[in-house]
């Protein structure tokens, strides 16, 4: 990638990123929000985390080629759920999650 390619890429993706990150907060900030909108905003975290997890562990193409291998992220996530419920610690979840994923990948 040349420097000019990088410059075009950088300016473009940064502009769209800043728009996505800043505009909604400034549009909604300080406004009296309706109960329905407040309710909807309260559902965003659960929806966002579920979508982020699903995006990381769900792979239709992997299931088509090797279903057993495709189950590794699901199994490792199940281990992390147990750790999360027991400890609530992000660090322990990250460490145990990586260890579980590595072990399962070696075993399967």
């Amino acid at each position, binding site marked *: 990638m040349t420097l000019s390619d990088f410059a075009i890429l950088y300016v473009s993706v940064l502009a769209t990123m800043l728009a996505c*990150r800043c505009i909604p907060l400034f549009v909604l900030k300080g406004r009296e929000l309706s109960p329905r909108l407040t309710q909807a905003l309260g559902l965003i975290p659960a929806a966002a985390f579920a979508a982020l997890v699903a995006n990381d562990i769900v792979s239709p193409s992997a299931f088509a080629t090797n279903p057993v291998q495709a189950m590794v992220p699901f199994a490792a996530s199940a281990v992390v759920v147990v750790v999360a419920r027991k400890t609530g610690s*992000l660090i322990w979840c990250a460490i145990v*999650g*990586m260890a579980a994923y590595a072990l399962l990948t070696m075993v399967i």
Partner: protein
Amino acid sequence: MSGTVPTKEDILSAFRAALPVMLGYLAIGLPCGIMESKVGFSPLMSFVLSMTFYSGAGQFMIPSMWLAGSPLYSVIASVSFVNTRQMLYSAAFSPYFSDVSRPLAFFFSATVTDESFGVSLEKFVTDEAWTPRRALLVNLMSMTSWGVANTVGTAVGPVLNLPLAVTSFAMTSIFVCLLVGQPLNRTTAVVVGVAFAGVLVCKLVGLAGPAILFGALAGVVAGMVFEVARGR
């Protein structure tokens, strides 16, 4: 919120909250930097991109698509589309920034991403002492960790080979932990189930890029419909 200089307590509190994310970023930022080095990024380019654009998914996509021969406009469109989910995060924070100055609101919203969104939103809900200034510090600490890891990865890229699938699962684990911390009720179950299904459907029909945004939006809409159907 008086004054502009963060107190020692602000810094310590933010550091404690940001530490898991910072460690996770060290694990995943190195391989990201290594990939960036493969398409000709210098350490300075990686650092500038990481400290301003600051997007794990986006920064992994750029070298992947470039190496696959995608044209520049296609890389820009895909990366931008994937990052539209940031709009949801920004909207979710708006109730906590009603009395915050414009510069602080701008710097906070410009530096928030998936992981710091989760950490700070949980803090806003559970910790009365949590402030927008501490949330901004979490963003900056996380971003710096990401920037340093990417820069080092780009500098030493040719001689390092980390198992990307394993290290990236640190971030997945953090998302799982944050998901488990959400309130347990029927509405949450509907939201989570539909968001999962939404992502799966998007991937099945070839819309992997916006899968997170569409999945999350489907989850929120389903949750609202469920609440209305229950008469709440």
